């Protein structure tokens, strides 16, 4: 029953407020209801009204009426605080599935008045607060829950405001028609899915120093990356050492989809993601071969991001993000 109602409500919302990357808040999109404090305020006004009747005190009654009128006027002001605000879907910042990503919302105020004390959030995440001055444009990154690998629709964006009196809550639930990419959740595996890569990198490396990436430990020098410090040794009280890897400029590995036959898609992607991170940590150069194409070898934050994006997008319909 509840589920049916919820579905009906969603369908009604979708009809009333179809998704769009840019939306302007107007009477079609804004809902308004009293808050708990608003009900308390009205209860006080009602109590004063009764008191005014009982004590035959016109002034107390007048004050009760003034409170009621103030409440009505507050409806207009609360509504206005949202009305005219333009929201635009901005960029996305992906994250691992099961974790959090972020979506950018750009808020643009009308020319004449400010939108004060706006709270924005996607379902299941704490709200962020922002105020926009007249004519101003502000961007806000909102956390979203990434439930799955691939493009996650974040649900309807809730924009809410209680300004000015806090007695009423005006809100809107908008489908901003954007989504956030979830990278595969990294799953460790012993076997590097870089079959053949070994030999090739070997060819490269043979000309250099040998077959091992890992060259050994040397004494820590200021400026060495903490990622390369041998913390295990340090914890064991053997002093601070830095792991020395072979020069990553010279060799690369191809992480290949095809090397993991017998596994399902998500497991493959998860393992690949883990290896992307692992290789990146070792400052190893790597490329990626997926059924839909390949990513040229490289390393660094950019390479990792591109590799993870490709893994995340695998098999997803093409979308903006």
């Amino acid at each position, binding site marked *: 029953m509840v589920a049916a109602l919820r579905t009906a409500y969603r369908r009604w919302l979708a009809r009333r407020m179809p998704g769009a990357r840019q939306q302007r808040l107007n009477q079609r999109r804004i809902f308004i209801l009293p808050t708990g404090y608003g009900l308390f305020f009205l209860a006080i006004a009602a109590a004063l009204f009764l008191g005014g009747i009982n004590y035959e005190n016109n002034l107390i009654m007048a*004050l009760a009426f003034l409170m009621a009128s103030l409440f009505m006027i507050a409806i207009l002001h609360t509504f206005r605080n949202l009305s005219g605000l333009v929201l635009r879907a901005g960029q996305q910042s992906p994250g691992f599935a099961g974790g959090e990503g972020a979506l950018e919302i750009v808020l643009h105020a009308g*020319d004449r008045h400010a939108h004060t004390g706006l709270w924005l959030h996607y379902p299941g995440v704490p709200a962020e607060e922002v105020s926009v001055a007249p004519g101003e444009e502000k961007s806000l990154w909102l956390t979203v829950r990434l439930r799955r690998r691939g493009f996650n629709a974040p649900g309807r964006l809730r924009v809410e405001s209680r300004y000015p009196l806090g007695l009423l809550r005006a809100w809107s639930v908008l489908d901003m028609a954007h989504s956030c990419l979830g990278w595969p959740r990294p799953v460790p595996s012993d076997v590097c899915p870089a079959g053949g890569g070994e030999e090739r990198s070997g060819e490269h490396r043979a000309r250099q120093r040998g077959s091992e990436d890992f060259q050994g430990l040397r004494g820590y020098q200021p400026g060495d990356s903490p990622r390369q410090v041998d913390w295990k040794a340090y914890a064991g009280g053997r002093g601070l050492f830095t792991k020395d890897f072979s020069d990553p400029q010279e060799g690369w590995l191809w992480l290949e989809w095809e090397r993991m036959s017998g596994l399902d898609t998500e497991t493959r992607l998860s393992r690949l993601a883990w290896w992307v991170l692992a290789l990146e940590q070792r400052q190893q150069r790597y490329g990626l071969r997926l059924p839909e194409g390949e990513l040229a070898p490289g390393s660094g934050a950019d390479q990792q991001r591109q590799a993870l994006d490709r893994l995340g997008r695998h098999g997803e319909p093409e979308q903006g993000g």
Partner: protein
Amino acid sequence: MRVYQVPHHTFWLLTLGTFLAALPHLLMGPLWLRVLIPALVVARVLVQRGRLRMPGRLLRVLLLGAIVVGTVYTHGTIAGPEAGACLLVAAFALKLLEMFRLRDAYVLLVLGYFVLATTFLFYQGPLAAFYVLLVMMLLTAALIGINKPETHARPTAHVRLASVMLLQSLPVMLLLFVLVPRVGPLWALEIRQEGARTGMSDSMAPGEVSNLTQSAELAFRVEFEGEVPPPAERYWRGLTYSWFDGRRWSQAAPRHVPRDELVRFAQGSANTWYPGLSVAREQVPGPVYRYRVVQEPSRRPWLYALAVPFAEQRDIGLARDFRLLRDSDLEQRYAYTVTSYPLLKPAMSLPDWERDFNLALPEAGNERSRALAESWFAEVDGEPRHYADRILRWFRQEAFYYTLEPPLLRGDTVDGFLFESRRGFCEHYASAFAYLMRAAGVPARIVAGYQGGELNPVGNHLRVHQYHAHAWVEIWLEAEGWVEFDPTGAVAPERIEQGMEPFRDGGGGALQNLFGGRGGAHPLLARWRNSLDYIQFSWQKWVLGYNETAQLAFLERWLGEVSPWRLARVMLIGMVILLLPVALWVLLRQRGPARSPLQREYRAMGRQLRRAGLASPEHLPPRELARWAGEHWPALAGEFNRWAAFYEQAAYAGEDEQESRQQLRRLRRRLRWRLRG
């Protein structure tokens, strides 16, 4: 526990608003309240400044306990309006030290409105209303402040918005005030003011000390519709004294007469005289006075009106001795409309029980007066009117004096007055006159009330003060009914013609003198005083006195027939009419300022793209717009970029704007043509 930090820009608004909301109660509250509330406010300020820790739970509970004990100590109870208000105010101020969450700030502020309203239980003047409005604005500003997240907001901005919102609310408030039906109290509640009020009492004893006539306090104001009766006819009847025990005249009636026979209320059962009287008033000739009285709280049920008064209010009854009284004491100011028929008195009959009662005298005492009465009554052949004239002539011709400070009388007070002291004021003369009448066998009674009243030329209304209090006599004449005689007028006719002013000996106090209380003041001051009085009277009449009856009369005048359905419709329409301009003002003010030609050009481009099927590309910078449109129509990307480049040149380069604008328009028109194609 983490303490909620009221935003810095709002802290002072909140503290000031809270303090001012409680202030009226401080002025009249017990001493401990006057100490406690400023102390709590100071403590809160110190907490805010980090000089003091927020008190712990134990301390707060102890304080609350102390407040309850203090209230019980002062008022003997925690129920009732005074004790309740005292408790509420103290607990409200204590809430200042219990601000741990945003919720507490809300509760404090919304309760603040309630505390503020209780001010009206004790003060109801126009200034009090203004004060409350001001504090309400501060509380509303504080409410805005706690909803404003910016740290650098200015309190003046909150104050401005709060004022605007309250001003916008006022018209709707007025509409509700006028139209929402007044009903009687739902359950009986009484609010007692401290101290006794000056005014009439239900008995009088000439010869004992009287302080009534010295008081300059206002008794009531009267506004006439149409003609104002001349000073000599302004006899405001309040009550009659029919029982004399030798010293004291008091209000009484024979025990066997049912109450409905004495006083007729609309909801009472039928009596013998009222139907006849109300028929007679339709035909009575002569003047009819219609007026509205606003009476100060007297803590008595007696109302004051000219003979023979009729009032429409259901809580007012008409007594058979031609006076009005309310079904409960006047604990607050009370307004009522009266129609008086001075010539209707003969329509009332005198049943035997009433004749007997108004002839009754003690068996013995005042022997000289009795003897005088018998001999004079025989002299005029038992003709009551001649007999009365004879007595008045005696008062006039012999050495009788009018004074507000008569000697005390012992023993037979009537004899003592008539034959020894011969100094007195209205009570003495009325008492002696009535005694002489009864002694001769003419039914007589004393009427107590007020006589006269000062006309305020500004509002054309009368002010009747306590020093206008008066007593006179009514005797029964066959064929004429009850006829008024004012023996005081025989001695001091100017008392009746000119009012009390010449006789008063500076009793009004310094303020009264300052404002020209004794007639000889500067005319400008007098006018100012009259205007002030008019404002107060209008306030009482229209705001405080707008009760069930006044509302009905007002609505019938403006709406014709008054039915709930019609009232609801008027209220709805009125609400729409009043709220619509405010709504338009609030909502449409968001429209941007007049657009520059360049902005118009930009919007035209937006429209053009929308028409071509690209959704709502508003509020994009021109380059973004061009890029977006270019993605949509790759073939035209170059054109779009050129348009954007020209736009930026026109907007930001500043020079030769005219030409780039024309160029811009040309580009746009070309694009339109190609978009269609």
